């Protein structure tokens, strides 16, 4: 079945250590929600599995699985401790 997300474009922004692991331009195909996005990111970059971060969809930090729309921006932010 052709996913409705086939032509979808999502912008993914990684911060801090996450960008060190996965690089600055990350793309993932065919994901309908944040859970499946995280699953495929973890598969692609296993080191992300042991890393702490929060997820924001369109500049809102989310607490549970969230539908990703076309042209959405998803940001993954780790905590910083430095001062």
């Amino acid at each position, binding site marked *: 079945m052709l996913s409705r997300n086939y032509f979808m474009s999502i912008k993914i922004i990684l911060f*801090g250590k996450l960008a060190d692991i996965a690089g600055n331009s990350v793309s993932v195909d065919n994901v309908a929600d944040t859970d499946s996005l995280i699953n495929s990111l973890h598969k692609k970059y296993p080191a992300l599995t042991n890393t702490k971060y929060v997820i924001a969809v369109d500049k809102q930090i989310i607490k549970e699985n969230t539908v990703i729309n076309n042209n959405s921006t998803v940001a993954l*932010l780790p905590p910083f401790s430095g001062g």
Partner: protein
Amino acid sequence: MSVQNLYDRYHRQIILPEFGEEGQQKLLKAKVLAIGAGGLGCPALQYLVAAGVGTIGIVDDDVIALNNLHRQVLYSVNDIGLSKAERAAKILHQLNPEIKIIAYNERLTTQNALMIIDEYEIIIDGTDNFSTRYMINDACALLNKFLVYGAISQFEGQVSVFRNDNADDVNYRDIFPDPPKEGEVLNCAEAGVLGVLPGIIGTMMANETIKLITGIGEPLINQLFTYNALNNQVYQLSLSARKETGSLIPKDESAFLKIDYEWLCAAPIQQNEIDSDIFNEMMAKGHIDVVDVRELHEMPAVNEFKHIKIPLAQVAENASLIKSDTVITFCQTGKRSLQAAKILSGIFGESKKIYSLRGGIVEWKKQKQTV
């Protein structure tokens, strides 16, 4: 201060229509506490003192080191070895002798935190470790204090303001409910930091503080601002309170005193760590299981002693492979093994003694060569 002096010193901000004499009076009456007089604390303090905040407290138990000077811009080479809190207070007093500056040359702990924080209206978190950050967050939530939060890593910074006034207000635990575990996040000493970055973020913290006091503009309440010094990208997120956060914040002073923040965040020195010498002694005695928690392909290979291989991610499910009453975990540098030791301690409790090899196999091989 004489009225004429007051006008002279603060003239350029008093003439701002939004600010005015009223804004200046608000600053002079304000009480601000900076926790940490390091990379973030130095620029934040410098601007708050210059702006005329009437009472400023500075908490820091650290002393100035040469490798601080590239970012902790209040200090000079003559200050090396001196108390940061006391030196900062003295230097800032010269900048503005008209205001009150109080130095607390002590480490913030659960024992003194509530007492010190309660004396002030706005708290600035410029500390460099998660245990103190979570403690400050909880104390400010408990005491309903404004918390101006800033944190940095390498080339990136975060700023936010936690109002702690009503139930909808966000605090740090709404973003990151639990402290990260050992090794999940690197500190400045491990990861490095561009000197100018805390200058930018610390100055933003001073700006947020001045906006809160004077009531001008829009402080970053329920917002998280991020900045990347390499590509100048800024990103501002909206935050919202979580229902569960309330249960993570201590209810009262006695609950606060009972929390072991060092333990929560796995402070660097652990009682269950052993060095290479003790490791060798324990090996000689026998009756132990040694566990390599690195990924299976990781080098260097270990042929010198008998051990079992369980990568960190599989430690919990394969704990039954461990039979002896004494267990030593090791990895490359001693961080993941510490996590593994914690996991195993959680599983076996008092029934087994669990240790982690400090410095990891890299350090052990190095020691062996020098013998």
